[in-house]
């Protein structure tokens, strides 16, 4: 808002503008802001979802602090995120570069690489159950024929999270599209200059492509972090939090607290703790980004 009063015309324009974005404003207030504030209030109460919430102060937060499964679920989630997000970025970058090749049939390849990202997670999960089946799965058959051990991806507590990290890579197509846009934005002249200076393809990637992609990578990192910490559906569909709690992720545990044990207060407290953790991690990434993100635009 500027400091001087608005002219009637401007005021009308502002009202019109607000009117046009009002569906979003109403949606945001009713379905995002209100629930967020509501959970904050509920997190200080004992509430089954029915009847009246009972005010119990910080008891829910204290209970979480001494809850072993809470810490285990947090550990599981951080482990998953620490693997799935960086690997996802590498995979997406490779895919973007593949999608950027000057071939006649590139639209077909692009579609093929992007397709798994638009399939419903539910369907992809079931496909993955079949692919990674230790008795009949193609992936496992292939591993055995290469002399590798036969891993029971989703049935072995040591590998269940890795199985889900693999599954997450099927969604790399979304990030790859963003990266592809980033690649297209890199001026050709830079590559031409690099070739003249005698840089090979690797050197060009390392000194031109990667530095100019860093802003896009930062964006994907922050987004991936917040999505990774909220991993839920795969664990719910494939492993139901098992085996032996290996995939009992933070949001999965939160869901159980809310809907299986009717502890809405505990679940709300968990949601706020996760919000704070996500915020802190995102800020840390931003803090370090000054060192590695390259915002120089080429004039």
């Amino acid at each position, binding site marked *: 808002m500027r400091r001087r009063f608005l002219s009637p015309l401007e005021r009308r324009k502002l009202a019109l503008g607000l009117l046009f974005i009002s569906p979003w404003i109403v949606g945001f207030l009713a379905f995002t802001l209100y629930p967020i504030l509501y959970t904050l209030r509920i997190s200080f109460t004992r509430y089954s979802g*029915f009847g009246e919430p009972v005010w119990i102060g910080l008891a829910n937060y204290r209970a979480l602090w001494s809850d072993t499964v809470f810490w285990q679920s947090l550990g599981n989630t951080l482990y998953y995120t620490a693997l799935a997000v960086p690997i996802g970025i590498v995979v997406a970058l490779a895919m973007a570069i593949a999608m950027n090749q000057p071939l006649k049939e590139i639209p077909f390849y692009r579609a093929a690489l992007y397709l798994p990202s638009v399939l419903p997670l539910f369907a992809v999960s079931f496909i993955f159950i079949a692919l990674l*089946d*230790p008795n009949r799965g193609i992936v496992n058959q292939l591993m055995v024929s290469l002399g590798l051990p036969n891993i029971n991806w*989703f049935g072995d507590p040591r590998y269940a999270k890795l199985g889900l990290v693999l599954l997450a890579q099927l969604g790399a197509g979304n990030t790859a599209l963003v990266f592809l846009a980033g690649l297209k934005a890199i001026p050709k002249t830079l590559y031409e200059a690099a070739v003249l200076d005698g840089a090979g393809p690797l050197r060009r990637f390392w000194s031109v492509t990667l530095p100019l992609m860093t802003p896009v990578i930062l964006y994907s990192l922050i987004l991936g972090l917040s999505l990774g910490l909220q991993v839920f559906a795969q664990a719910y569909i494939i492993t139901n939090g098992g085996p*032996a709690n290996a995939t009992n992720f933070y949001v999965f545990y939160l869901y159980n607290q809310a809907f*299986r044990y009717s502890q809405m207060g505990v679940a709300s407290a968990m949601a706020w703790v996760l919000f704070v953790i996500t915020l802190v991690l995102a800020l840390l990434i931003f803090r370090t980004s000054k060192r590695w993100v390259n915002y120089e635009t080429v004039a």
Partner: protein
Amino acid sequence: MKLLKSLVLLSLSLFAAGQAQEVREVTFWTAHGEPDLSALRQIVDNFNAEHDDIQVTLSQIPPGAETDVTRLMTAVRGGTGPDVYMLDRFIVAQRAADGLLQDLSPYMDGEDVLANYLEFAREEAMLAGVPYALPFDTDARALYYNIDLLEEAGVDTSELDPENGPLTLARIQEIASMVDQKNAQGNFERMGFIPWHEQGWHYTYGFAFGGDFYDEVACQVTPTDDNIVRAFEWIYDYAAQEGPQQVQTFRQAFTRPDLPPQQNPFIAGQLAMIITGDWMIGNLERYAPDMNYGITYIPVPEEGDASVTWAGGWSMVMPQGAREPEAAFEFMKYIAGEPGQRVYVQETRHMPTLTSLLDDAELFEGRHQFFRDLLPTARNRPPLPIGALYWDELTDAWERVYLNQQEPRAALEQVAARVQPQLEPFCAQLQAEN
């Protein structure tokens, strides 16, 4: 037949409309799949044909884990819940304590409807003396064995005949090892027995070893009862001998929650012995009619011990916010009463909770009679307001033990530490009841 039925229904409803009668719509939700779903459908159709003024619509909701009622909770909160819901009976107390269910006494008109049911089912249907459910079916667990598969492996199956009483767990383990077969890659292709598969739960073995899961007087959950620890230790050692991960690999294909019944390893002939419930008779009739199999007692820890089984089952509840409570209760009395239970028992091979039906010889043909005879001595899970949490915590501990991830006693101590504090707030109420 279907067409005829719908024509009859249509003409009935037209007739009803002609009478200008108010038809009350009752919605009924279940998470059950086939073959039980067909039986429920038949009961609903029968009810609708007999009642002009009430029409029940049955909806199947997706199955979740044993204790998951998310769909119900969210729908009730949103004001779009059903009038009648089929709920696992041992968690009625927990859902009633949550405030999710309606007290049924106002609809009973002073009549003691629950008096007609088996005692344990009646107890499971109440919380603090208030009725929240009408018991539906019950079941019991036993050991099924595939005679042909065992004989093929060189086992003399006459030993397993129930006439000889229960076998010991050690003997079952010996027999099972004769059936085990591995392929070139060292994976099990066929197994004799997996103690923790299907209905081989923590409660199954805890009871078999003579354990008690709850101390009423002290208001304490007792997962660390010495006998329960012994049961878990037996499982731990069994898994260690077979190779926990190799068994897990074999089971991997059979542990999805939505697995169609014909893919059960016992039905598919890949598992020679299995502890499961009476409903397996119905499944085998449908999906493996030629299987030559027997049913015997759950094995015992020591020679001479009495075999112990446990009974579970489902119930009909009325969630908060039911739009047609009177009509809903009318239907609940029908389905949980004689007309409903009779059809359900015949079609699905579950057992009735109505005492009047238990002595009905024509309901229990042949093998089914075996389960009927187990009922009087069957144990049941303590109906606690934290029943769902207790089940889930025991299940986690059970998993850690059969995967050899944690020592039995430590796993069970963790259960006690996590469940007891949640039980405390209800203790005053529970002890007043006794």
